[in-house]
C-alpha cells in the first residue's frame, strides 16, 4: 500500500514510479498551447451551421437567398448538395447505423444540423445561419424510449427494419439465472436509471480543412483517434488515405466527446473541396452540448442472495435510449460495450444481462464519457444494488461485499458474463480504505447523529473497471481492430523521439511515455520528444479513450523499447568484444556477466549505432504494434461521507476517499491528478449534471447555465491512496486509472446519500441527487412514515 503522494518506488528505478513534473506544462502555462482555434490557414473561410429548432419535423423547403445577401457570404450547402457529392450520410463508429450529415428530408432531433453557411468572417457566417429560412412541418415527437418501443411513430424510415428497435444484445445464462433467482432466499428488485450526461470538455470541438496544391486533404481536427478519423474520412469521401492527413493538435479535454466524427467536420471538408479554400469550423458551446451524449440506460435489476448474504444470481434488463442515430462508440462485436462487467467485483454463480436499444427524437451519440464504453452504468448498477441488498438483509455493506468478493487466489477469474479478470486484491484494497477513513469511528458518529435525528451517510463503491480495449479479437471501431503502435528512434547522442497512435487530451502522455521508454532503455526521460496526433508521422493506433492509452500504447512502448535493447545488445557485444549472450542488462547498462568493470551504457551504444556498429545494421530504432492478449481490470474502493440537511435536502460531501489499484504506476503525480479530475466529474454526475429533455423533445441543457458542472466552491476535497496488483499479462504490469474515479464514484456518492436517508425508509433516488429531489424524497418519506410526527 502506498500513498500516491509519496516517492514509493525503490531507488533503483530510473524513471518509472516517479512524480516527474510534466514536460508539456511550460507551453500550456505560457499560453503557447496550440489548440484547434489557434490554427488559421491563409485565405480560410468560416463555417456556421443552421440547427433545427424542432425535434421531429419534415423539411418542406430551404430558402438561402436572404443569407446570401449578407456581405461576405460565400455559399450555403444543404443535404441536396452533399448528396450530389455522395456524402449525405456517414458511418457511425461501430458501423451498425449511419448518420445524416445534414438533415435529409426531415429532422430527427432538436439542434440537428440542417445547412452549412460559408463566409469570409465568422460573424458573417453566423449572420447567414440566422437568415437561412427553413420551412418545417412539425411531426409527432417521441422523446421517451418506452414510447419508442411501441412503434406508433416510425422514426427511421430510411432503415430496412421498420421499427424503432435498434438491437438486442444479451450475454449469460438466462434459464440458469431465472432458476437460481427463484430458489433464492431473497431477491432485490429495483429500477435504476443512469441519466443522460455530456462530457463537456472546456474546449469545444472544431476543425480546419484544406486541400493543398497537390489535392491532398490537410485536416486539423479535435480528435482523440486521428488514424480512425482518416480511415472514416476515406469511407465517407472516397479519398484514398494517402491523400488525407489528419492532424490533431493540443486538445482542451475530450473525455469521449472527441471520438465521434461530427457532421460539421464533413461539411467543412465538403466546403473546402467545393469552394477551393480552407474552411474553419469551431463549435459553439451549445453545439458541443447538443451533438452527443453518454449513458441514458434504464435498468431493471434482480439480485438474488441467500439469507447469509451469499450472492446467488444477477439478472439485468436494460432499455437504452440511443437518440436519433445509433452513433454509440462501441465495438461492433459488442454493441453494448463493456456492460458485461455488471457482475462487478463479486462471485456470481449465475448471471444474465439483456439490453434493448431504441431510437428516440434526441441527440445521437452514446459516446463513452470518461469510461470504457458502458462500464460506468454497469458499475453504478451493481454497487447500488449491493447496498440495497445489504439494507434489506440488515448487513453492513462492507461485510456483504467482503463475503462475496472474488478472492485474490481466484485470478485469473472467469465471470459468468464472459470476461476473464486478470488480477486484483479487493479485500485488501477495501481494508486499506476502511482503515484510512476510520470506518468504525464514522459508524459511531453516525449512530449518535441518528439518535438526534440528523442525516449522515457513509457510502461505498468497491468497483472493478475494465480497460485497455483491444484485444483486437473482441474490439474494433468500424471493423478496424483495436491495437496500438509505437515508434521509437534513438539519436546518436542518446536523446530520442517517441511516437504513438494515441492522443493525449491532457493526460500527460509527453511525460508518461518518456518515462516508460527511459526506464526500459536507461536513458534520461527529459531527452525524449513525444509526438502524437499526426497521421503522417505517428504509427497507426486506435487513439485515446476508454482508458486504453497506458494498457495498449504503453505496452507497445515497453515492447518497442525492448526490441531496441535487443539490437543494442549486439552493438554492445561488438564494443566489448564479447558474445552477446555473455552480456546482461544490469543497472541500466550492458555488463559482461561477472565482470562489472566491463560495461557500456545505452548512451554509448546509441553513439556507436551511428559511428561504429560493427557488422550490425546501423541505427537504433523500432516500430511495434501491440495487440494485448486480454483487457486489464483495475479496481478500487471509494468511500463517501455525507451530511444531508433534513430541512433543505442539501447534501454536503464531508469526506471522500479513493483507494485505487491501477497496477504499476508510472507517474504518481499524474495518476493522482487524474483521480481528482475523475472524482469531480463523478461528483457532477451524482449531484448536478444532466441533459434533460421535456416531453416535447426540447433539450433543456444547452450551455453551462443550465447544464451544471462543479466549480471549486462545491467540489469536495479529495483524499487518495493506492494499492498495487500489477497486471500479469501487461509488459510493465500497468492497468490504467483515468476513468476509474468517474466509473466508481457515482455509486459511492448515491450510496452515501441513500444511507443518510435510510432511517426514513428511502431505498433509491435516481441521479442527479439535486437538493430538490432529495428534499422531495425526505418529505415523501416523512409523510408516509407512521413516525412522521
Amino acid at each position, binding site marked *: 500500500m502506498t500513498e500516491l503522494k509519496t516517492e514509493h518506488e525503490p531507488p533503483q528505478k530510473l524513471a518509472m514510479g516517479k512524480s516527474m513534473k510534466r514536460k508539456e506544462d511550460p507551453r*500550456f*502555462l505560457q499560453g503557447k498551447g496550440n489548440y484547434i482555434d489557434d490554427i488559421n490557414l491563409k485565405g480560410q473561410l468560416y463555417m456556421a451551421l443552421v440547427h433545427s429548432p424542432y425535434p421531429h419535423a419534415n423539411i418542406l423547403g430551404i430558402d438561402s437567398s436572404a443569407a446570401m445577401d449578407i456581405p461576405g457570404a460565400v455559399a450555403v450547402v444543404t443535404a441536396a448538395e452533399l448528396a450530389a457529392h455522395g456524402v449525405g450520410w456517414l458511418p457511425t463508429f461501430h458501423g451498425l447505423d449511419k448518420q445524416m450529415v445534414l438533415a435529409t428530408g426531415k429532422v430527427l432531433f432538436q439542434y440537428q444540423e440542417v445547412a452549412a453557411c460559408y463566409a469570409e468572417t465568422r460573424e458573417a457566417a453566423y449572420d447567414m445561419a440566422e437568415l437561412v429560412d427553413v420551412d418545417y412541418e412539425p411531426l409527432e415527437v417521441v422523446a421517451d424510449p418506452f414510447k419508442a418501443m411501441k412503434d406508433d411513430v416510425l422514426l427511421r424510415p430510411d432503415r430496412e427494419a421498420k421499427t424503432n428497435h435498434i438491437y438486442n444484445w444479451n450475454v449469460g445464462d438466462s434459464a440458469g439465472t431465472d432458476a437460481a433467482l427463484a430458489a433464492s432466499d431473497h431477491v432485490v428488485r429495483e429500477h435504476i436509471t443512469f441519466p443522460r450526461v455530456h462530457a463537456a470538455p472546456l474546449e469545444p470541438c472544431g476543425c480546419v480543412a484544406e486541400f493543398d496544391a497537390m489535392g491532398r486533404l490537410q485536416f486539423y481536427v479535435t480528435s482523440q483517434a486521428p488514424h480512425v478519423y482518416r480511415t472514416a474520412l476515406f469511407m465517407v469521401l472516397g479519398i484514398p488515405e494517402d491523400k488525407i492527413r489528419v492532424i490533431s493538435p493540443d486538445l*482542451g479535454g475530450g473525455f469521449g466527446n472527441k471520438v465521434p466524427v461530427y457532421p460539421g467536420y464533413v461539411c467543412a471538408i465538403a466546403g473546402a473541396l467545393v469552394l477551393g479554400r480552407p474552411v474553419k469550423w469551431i463549435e459553439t458551446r451549445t453545439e458541443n452540448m447538443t451533438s452527443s451524449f453518454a449513458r441514458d440506460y434504464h435498468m431493471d435489476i434482480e439480485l438474488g442472495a441467500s439469507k447469509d448474504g451469499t450472492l446467488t444470481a444477477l439478472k439485468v434488463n436494460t432499455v437504452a435510449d440511443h437518440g436519433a442515430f445509433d452513433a454509440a462508440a462501441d465495438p461492433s462485436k459488442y454493441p453494448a460495450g463493456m456492460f458485461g462487467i455488471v457482475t462487478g467485483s463479486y462471485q456470481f454463480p449465475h448471471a444474465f444481462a439483456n439490453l434493448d436499444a431504441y431510437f428516440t427524437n434526441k441527440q445521437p451519440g452514446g459516446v463513452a464519457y470518461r469510461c470504457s464504453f458502458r462500464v460506468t452504468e454497469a458499475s453504478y448498477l451493481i454497487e447500488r444494488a449491493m447496498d440495497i441488498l445489504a439494507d434489506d438483509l440488515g448487513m453492513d455493506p462492507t461485510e456483504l461485499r467482503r463475503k462475496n468478493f472474488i478472492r485474490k487466489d481466484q485470478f485469473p477469474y472467469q465471470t459468468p458474463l464472459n470476461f476473464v479478470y486478470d488480477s486484483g486484491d479487493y479485500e485488501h484494497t477495501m481494508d486499506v480504505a476502511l482503515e484510512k477513513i476510520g470506518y468504525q469511528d464514522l459508524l459511531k458518529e453516525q449512530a449518535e447523529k441518528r439518535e438526534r435525528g440528523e442525516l449522515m451517510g457513509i457510502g461505498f463503491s468497491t468497483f472493478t473497471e475494465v480497460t485497455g480495449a483491444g484485444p483486437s479479437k473482441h474490439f474494433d471501431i468500424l471493423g478496424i481492430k483495436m491495437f496500438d503502435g509505437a515508434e521509437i528512434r534513438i539519436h546518436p547522442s542518446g536523446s530520442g523521439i517517441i511516437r504513438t497512435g494515441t492522443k493525449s487530451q491532457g493526460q500527460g502522455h509527453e511525460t508518461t511515455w518518456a518515462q516508460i521508454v527511459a526506464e526500459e532503455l536507461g536513458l534520461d526521460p527529459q531527452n525524449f520528444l513525444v509526438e502524437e496526433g499526426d497521421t503522417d508521422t505517428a504509427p497507426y493506433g486506435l487513439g485515446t479513450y476508454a482508458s486504453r492509452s497506458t494498457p495498449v500504447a504503453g505496452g507497445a512502448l515497453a515492447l518497442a523499447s525492448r526490441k531496441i535493447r535487443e539490437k543494442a545488445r549486439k552493438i554492445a557485444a561488438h564494443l566489448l568484444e564479447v558474445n552477446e549472450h555473455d552480456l546482461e542488462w544490469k543497472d541500466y547498462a550492458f555488463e559482461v556477466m561477472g565482470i562489472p568493470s566491463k560495461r557500456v551504457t545505452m548512451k554509448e551504444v546509441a553513439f556507436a549505432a551511428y559511428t561504429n556498429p560493427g557488422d550490425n545494421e546501423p541505427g537504433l530504432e523500432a516500430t511495434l504494434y501491440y495487440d494485448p492478449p486480454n483487457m486489464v481490470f483495475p479496481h478500487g474502493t471509494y468511500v463517501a461521507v455525507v451530511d444531508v440537511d433534513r430541512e433543505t435536502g442539501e447534501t454536503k460531501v464531508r469526506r471522500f476517499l479513493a483507494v485505487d489499484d491501477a497496477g504499476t504506476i508510472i507517474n504518481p503525480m499524474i495518476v493522482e491528478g487524474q483521480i*481528482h479530475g475523475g472524482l469531480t466529474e463523478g461528483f457532477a454526475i451524482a449531484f448536478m449534471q444532466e441533459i434533460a429533455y421535456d416531453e416535447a423533445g426540447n433539450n433543456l441543457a444547452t450551455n453551462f*447555465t443550465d447544464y451544471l458542472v462543479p466549480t471549486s466552491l462545491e467540489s469536495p476535497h479529495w483524499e487518495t491512496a493506492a494499492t498495487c496488483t500489477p497486471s500479469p499479462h501487461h509488459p510493465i504490469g500497468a492497468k490504467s486509472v483515468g476513468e476509474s474515479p468517474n466509473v466508481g464514484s457515482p455509486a459511492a456518492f448515491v450510496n452515501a446519500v441513500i444511507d443518510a436517508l435510510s432511517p426514513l425508509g428511502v431505498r433509491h433516488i435516481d441521479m442527479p441527487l439535486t437538493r430538490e429531489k432529495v428534499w422531495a424524497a425526505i418529505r415523501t418519506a416523512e409523510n408516509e412514515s407512521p413516525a412522521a410526527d
Partner: protein
Amino acid sequence: MTGETQRQLPDTDFAVVEAPTTLSVSVRINGKVVTRDVEARTLLVHFIREEAGLTGTHVGCDSSSCGVCTVLIDGDVPVKSCTMFAVMAHGRDVRTVESLAVGGKLHPIQQAFWDQHGLQCGYCTPGMMMTSLALLGRNPSPSEHEIREGLSGNLCRCTGYNNIVKAVQQAAEMMAPSAAPEVSHD
C-alpha cells in the same frame, strides 16, 4: 466610446439606433498598444486572439460561465473577455497570460501551477492563473475557502481543483513580501 453616431431618431413607435459597423479601437495589451478597425460587435476575446494575435486567452462557453477567457483590465480587475466588447476596452490596459513569464522565467503563479500539477489539458489554465493573480492582489494570503470562492467563476474539467487550490497557496507564499523579490512584469 466615440460620440459621432448621435443622430435624429426616425419617427417610429420604437427607437432604432443605427450603430456604425466599424470602429477604430485602441487597447493597450501587455504594455503594447494595438489599434484596429473592428466591427462594433467584436468581443474583447476575439480582439485579443485575432487582432493582437495572442492565443493564450481561450473561448470555452460563449456565455461568461467558464472563465477560460479571463484577462485583467486596468491592472487587477479580472474580466471574462467574452463578456465585453472590444470597444469597451478602448483606451484601457489589458493583461493576458502572455505577460506573465518574463525573459523565459516563469511567473510565480506559473511556477506554482507547474509544481502542484494544477493543470492537465491546459485549456482553462491561462484564465485560472489570471483570476488567481487578481485574487492574490486583493488578498495576499487567502484561506482555502477564500481561494475556492475566488476561483468559482473559472471552470476546470480535468484537475478537480485540489491542486489548483494548492498552486494558489504556493503562489501566495512565493509572492509574499518576505519571499524573494518577484520579477517585475511591467
